[in-house]
C-alpha cells in the first residue's frame, strides 16, 4: 500500500530556490508516506462532475467552454483565437470520462482579471479568463479561447512568465487531483522561467507544452493546440485490504 508517489523525474521539488517564493513556503521536514486508504481513493471529482452536469442539463454550454465570448458582453475578446483540446487519461492510458477541467489565464495583453495583478497592460472588457468543461466519452475536453500573453513578475530582474494557461482537474480520486500550467510550443521564455524549469527533466517539461495541431485548427477561424493530461490513479494493488474491509462491514 505504501510507496512514494512523487516520482522525482516528474514532480518539481518543493524547494526550488530560483523560484523565490518556494524558499519560505516549502516544507523542510520529509513528507511522510501515506497509504492510500478509502480517504485517498475517493475524492470529490465524481460529485463535482455530477453537479456541473445538472447545472448545464447534460451538455456543456458554450458559456463555459468559449472564453472568447463568456464574459457575456456580446462582444468578442481581443486576441488570437485558439482551440485547446486534448484527452484526460489515467496512467494506463484509459480515458477519464466526465472529468471536470477548469482553466484560467491572462488576456491577450498578459493581464489577469484579478485585483492583485498590477501589470499595466490593458484589461479586456470582453474577456473573463475562466472556463470549465467536462470530458466527453473519449476523455476529450475542448476550449475556444485567445492566446494568453506573457507578463512580467517580481521573481528576479527582467523576469517574464512565458504564456501559459492554468489547468485544474479533480479526476476520480483525491490522489488524482492536479493543478498545472500548459505552455505553448516554441516560446523562448520557457528556458528562462524558474516555474517551468522546476520540473526536473526535459522529458517531463515537454509534457507541459501543448503541440500545434493542424487537424484541430479550424479554417478561417482559430489555431489548434493539443494538450493531453495524465492523472495519477490509485496504486495497482491497493484494493485487497480495502475490499476485505468492505466485506467485513457488510
Amino acid at each position: 500500500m505504501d510507496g512514494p508517489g512523487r516520482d522525482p523525474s516528474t514532480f518539481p521539488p518543493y524547494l526550488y530556490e530560483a523560484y523565490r517564493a518556494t524558499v519560505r513556503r516549502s516544507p523542510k521536514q520529509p513528507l511522510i508516506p501515506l497509504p492510500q486508504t478509502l480517504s485517498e481513493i475517493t475524492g470529490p471529482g465524481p460529485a463535482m462532475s455530477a453537479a456541473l452536469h445538472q447545472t448545464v442539463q447534460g451538455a456543456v454550454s458554450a458559456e463555459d467552454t468559449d472564453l472568447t465570448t463568456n464574459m457575456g458582453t456580446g462582444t468578442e475578446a481581443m486576441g488570437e483565437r485558439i482551440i485547446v483540446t486534448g484527452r484526460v487519461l489515467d496512467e494506463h492510458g484509459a480515458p477519464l470520462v466526465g472529468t471536470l477541467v477548469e482553466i484560467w489565464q491572462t488576456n491577450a495583453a498578459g493581464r489577469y482579471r484579478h485585483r492583485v495583478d498590477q501589470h499595466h497592460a490593458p484589461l479586456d472588457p470582453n474577456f473573463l479568463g475562466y472556463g470549465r468543461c467536462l470530458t466527453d466519452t473519449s476523455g476529450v475536453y475542448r476550449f475556444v479561447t485567445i492566446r494568453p500573453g506573457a507578463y512580467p513578475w517580481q521573481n528576479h530582474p527582467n523576469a517574464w512568465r512565458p504564456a501559459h494557461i492554468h489547468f485544474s482537474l479533480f479526476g476520480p480520486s483525491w490522489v488524482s487531483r492536479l493543478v498545472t500550467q500548459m505552455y505553448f510550443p516554441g516560446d523562448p521564455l520557457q528556458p528562462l522561467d524558474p516555474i517551468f524549469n522546476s520540473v526536473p527533466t526535459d522529458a517531463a517539461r515537454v509534457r507541459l507544452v501543448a503541440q500545434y495541431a493542424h487537424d484541430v485548427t479550424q479554417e478561417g477561424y482559430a489555431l489548434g493546440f493539443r494538450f493531453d493530461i495524465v492523472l495519477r490513479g490509485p496504486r495497482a494493488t491497493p484494493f485487497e485490504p480495502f475490499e476485505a474491509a468492505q466485506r467485513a462491514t457488510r
Partner: protein
Amino acid sequence: MSGRALTPPQTVGPFFHIMLREPMNALATPQTAGTRIRIEGVVYDGDRAVVPDAMIEIWQANAAGRYRHPADLRPAPLDPAFVGFGRCGTDERGFYSFDTIKPGPVPFDAQRVQAPHISMLVFARGLLDHLRTRAYFDDERANADDPVLHLVPQQRRPTLLAKHRPDVGRVVYRFDIVLQGDGETVFFDL
C-alpha cells in the same frame, strides 16, 4: 504497469481566485445530518508570516463515515444533503474557514478503523505541487488507535490535531497550517 507518464504539477499561482467563482466553504446545509462544526485556521510560512494567497481544499466523509464516491460501496448511508468537498482561499490575515459536520470514522483495512479526519490540500504561490495533510480532532479518543497517526513521529502528531475551542459558543476547531519551520505541519506523500 504504467503506460503513460504523468503530467507534472505547477503552482496554482496568485490568481486562482479567477477560478473560485462562488464560495465553497459551507459544506453543511440545514438538512445535513451530524454535529455542526467550523474548522478554521491561519496558514503561515517559514518566517511565521501569514500566507494571504493560499487555497485550501477539504474532502471528508459524512456523519456516518460514508464518502460520496463510487469507490465507497459500504452500506453506511449517504446523506443527500452532504457532498464533503470544500474550497476556500485565505484572506489577507491568512485565515480560512469551513462550516461542515464532524465526519464519522472510516475503515483503514479489514481490522482497523481510522479516527474521524478531514483530508486537506494546500495550494499557493510558491508551492510547486500542492501539499497533502489531514486534520484530526484533538478531543477524539479514536486518535489513539489511528493507523495513520501512528505513522507520524509522536512529537509531530500534534500538528495534525485541530484544537477544540469551547470558548466561542459553538463547535469550532482551530487548525493552523505551518508550511515550514517550528511546528511545521506534517505533510504526506501519497
